């Protein structure tokens, strides 16, 4: 890289010439005792709660407990080189992290310092780690889908942009896999993803970053990692820092973002540790009294921000940057009521040559996917119930399903999304409508069928359909599907196009059908993607596509064997 050294010299020279030193006024204290990421400091009488302080070794701390004669500080870094009697300086600032485009594709610690050996993060922007969540007027209802690319979730527990959907389950049930697949599925959608790894093994995080690299997901992802060996204060602030990095894109750029907190139970444990060390009174399960607030204030920062509208000349092109100053009358109209007002204003004052346009920096969103690990499926423990009550729905993962080979092991019976169908494209809403009920009916019948009773044909049909649907909802890891593909596949399953395919072959059928759809019927697929709904012509065409594929599809087993593979063949005419 070529650059002229004298250019840099001139910058420095100018700076030195214009440098006017002021008498620096700082507030200091002395370390009384230190250990386990906590320091007790005497002095600092004017320090604010949550203010950043600086130790002599350059490590930063956060004033956490303001007591009569001392200040409890959590140490965000190496506390082994801090000694009793050392000076602590107040900075007068709250903790901030660097944010901006420069962080995308990087792996950083919770303070925004790079840990991926790719040089410094150079950005001029920073945001407060703890910031206030947007209020009612700044938000709008969640109605845009955040596609996870996972059939079982996008069809039955759809997630909207700005929603907070909890992923909960025992260890090793595929919680992180769902979050990673969701990140992989955001490729090309303009969604910025932040993955916050809290108290995870460094090897796990390294493996995960490698996966994101291999699938090209690091181009739009920031990884914030507080490893298992990092001090508890760093693990505690990690989700807030990750949230701030996503907020930059939501507030400043109007972009959709996705934040994965993996996982909040470990963050709660880290917070419990430092609260106990700070001698805050313990409550249930020894967690501090404000553990609920610690999670609610974090998750409340996820939002779908209201659109802002301005009246601009009609000649303004779509690609142009429209900000709040672009309006011809200098007014900004906020949210749905604002849109109505703007329409009224446009009709009454600007008859010709004007239009209403959304500002490019408004309407951003932050979707949160917090993860919670349960012990032995115990969802009534303290932290799981807290986070369940904060979030807008939860995806339950069951170990039995996981080991039975149903992966993702989503228990569709108890997983919910409180935003519901509003966050689905119409086509998906249509095909998924009966899916949940069908599956529920299947579960009921399945239990009944195990008794070995003779079944009538209709019941047998329902059982067979159910088995195929369960098979169809299975999905390999790192294989998120486009929503159009999901719609076609679920449509085929629920309309009986798979009834003649042996259960064991459903996954092969699916992958071959998707290949066929993408390679030979790309035009139809594009039309479905553009139209987003199953209108009559689309349905007709889809049926034709399925019919054509049915002709091509060759079962590995002969039809007779296919019949034999059914668990309970029903004699003809029964």
């Amino acid at each position, binding site marked *: 890289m070529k650059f002229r050294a004298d*250019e840099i010299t001139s910058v420095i020279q100018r*700076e*030195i010439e214009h440098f006017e030193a002021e008498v*620096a006024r700082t507030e200091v204290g002395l370390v009384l005792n230190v250990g386990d990421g906590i320091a007790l400091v005497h002095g600092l009488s004017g320090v604010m709660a949550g203010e950043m302080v600086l130790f002599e070794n350059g490590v930063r701390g956060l004033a956490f407990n303001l007591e009569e004669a001392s200040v409890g500080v959590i140490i965000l870094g190496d506390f082994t080189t801090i000694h009793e*009697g050392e000076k602590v300086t107040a900075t007068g600032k709250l903790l901030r992290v660097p944010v901006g485009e420069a962080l995308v594709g990087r792996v950083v610690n919770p303070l925004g310092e790079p840990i991926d050996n790719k040089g410094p993060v150079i950005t001029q922007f920073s945001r407060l780690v703890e910031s206030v969540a947007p209020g009612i007027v700044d938000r709008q209802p969640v109605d845009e889908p955040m596609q996870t690319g996972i059939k079982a979730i996008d069809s039955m527990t759809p997630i909207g942009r700005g929603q907070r959907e909890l992923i909960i389950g025992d260890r090793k049930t595929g919680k992180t896999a769902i979050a990673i697949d969701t990140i992989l599925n955001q490729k090309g959608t303009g969604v910025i993803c932040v993955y916050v790894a809290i108290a995870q093994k460094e090897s796990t995080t390294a493996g995960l970053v490698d996966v994101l690299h291999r699938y090209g997901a690091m181009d739009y992802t920031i990884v914030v990692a507080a490893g298992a060996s990092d001090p508890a204060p760093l693990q505690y602030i990690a989700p807030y820092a990750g949230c701030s990095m996503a907020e930059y894109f939501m507030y400043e750029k109007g972009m959709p973002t996705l934040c994965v907190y993996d996982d909040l139970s470990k963050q709660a444990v880290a917070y419990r540790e430092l609260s106990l060390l700070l001698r805050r009174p313990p409550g249930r399960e020894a967690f501090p009294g404000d553990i609920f607030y610690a999670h609610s204030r974090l998750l409340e920062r996820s939002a779908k921000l209201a659109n802002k509208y301005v009246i601009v000349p009609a000649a303004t092109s779509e690609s142009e940057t429209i900000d709040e100053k672009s309006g011809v009358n200098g007014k900004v109209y906020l949210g749905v009521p604002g849109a109505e007002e703007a329409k009224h204003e446009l009709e009454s004052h600007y008859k010709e040559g004007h239009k209403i346009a959304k500002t490019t920096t408004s309407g951003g969103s932050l979707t949160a996917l917090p993860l919670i690990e349960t012990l032995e499926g115990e969802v009534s423990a303290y932290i799981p119930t807290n986070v369940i009550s904060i979030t807008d729905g939860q995806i339950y993962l069951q170990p039995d399903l996981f080991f039975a080979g149903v992966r993702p092991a989503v228990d569709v019976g108890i997983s919910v999304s409180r935003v519901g169908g509003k966050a689905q494209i119409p086509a998906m809403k249509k095909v998924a409508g009966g899916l949940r009920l069908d599956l529920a009916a299947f579960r009921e019948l399945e239990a009944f069928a195990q008794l070995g009773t003779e079944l009538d044909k209709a019941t047998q049909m329902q059982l067979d359909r159910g088995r195929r649907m369960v098979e169809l909802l299975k999905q390999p890891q790192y294989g998120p599907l486009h929503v159009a593909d999901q719609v076609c596949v679920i449509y085929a399953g629920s309309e009986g196009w798979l009834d003649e395919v042996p259960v064991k072959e459903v996954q092969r059928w699916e992958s071959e059908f998707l290949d066929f759809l993408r390679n030979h019927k790309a035009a139809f697929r594009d039309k479905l993607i553009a139209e987003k709904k199953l209108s009559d012509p689309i349905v007709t065409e889809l049926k034709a596509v399925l019919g054509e594929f049915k002709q091509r599809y060759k079962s590995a087993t002969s039809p007779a064997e296919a019949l034999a593979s059914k668990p309970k063949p029903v004699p003809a005419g029964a």
Partner: protein
Amino acid sequence: MSDSPSKSTSGTANDPNAAAHPRAATIFDESNTEVVAAYSQALAAAAEAGGPAALDDVLDELAAVQAEVFEKSPSFTALLNSPLVQPSEKDDLLRRAFEGKLSVVALNTLRVMNRHGRIGLFAAVVAEAASIRDRRRNRRAVVVRTAVPLEGPLLDAVRARLAVLLQADPIVRCEVDASLLGGLVVQVGDLVYDASLRGRLEQLRHRLIEGKTHEIQSRRDHFSHSA
């Protein structure tokens, strides 16, 4: 905390090891601040009843007891702190040792603290009572750090200037820290005013790194692209 040697900050002034060992001092036992506050306020009030000069005398006497007796003969201090010895015996001991040598208020302070089993907080109570006196008389403890020793008219000038700025009578304690290079650093309570050369250079360094990295980077990119 209390078992570490009570090396007070004042010892660091001309201590050549001061810079090498930043672990200056254990300040106080923060667990008993309320008790210390109660005893020191009572002590100050009782002594001041005899006039402003009496307060000074009592505090001087008690400081001398701390420095000359308690610190120099640890066995005596250990005896006073020992729960094995009856308070009445200790009281006798105190009376025999100090009666006639100390003023009544000073001796009574010792005896009252002994009777309540608080003799271990004696040093802290005396220090706190002295700071109460300083607050009442509008005196402020000020630490002035310079690269070279501050003497004569220069020190007077600093003191006079501080008196005007603080609107109080400054009790100046000078410390020498060659690493400051020049200028001076003034500490009043928790507040540090840094007008040293080292501080200024640090500020300049900080500003160059923080403020100009981006500019240099963008210019470098500009040149590398145009080249």
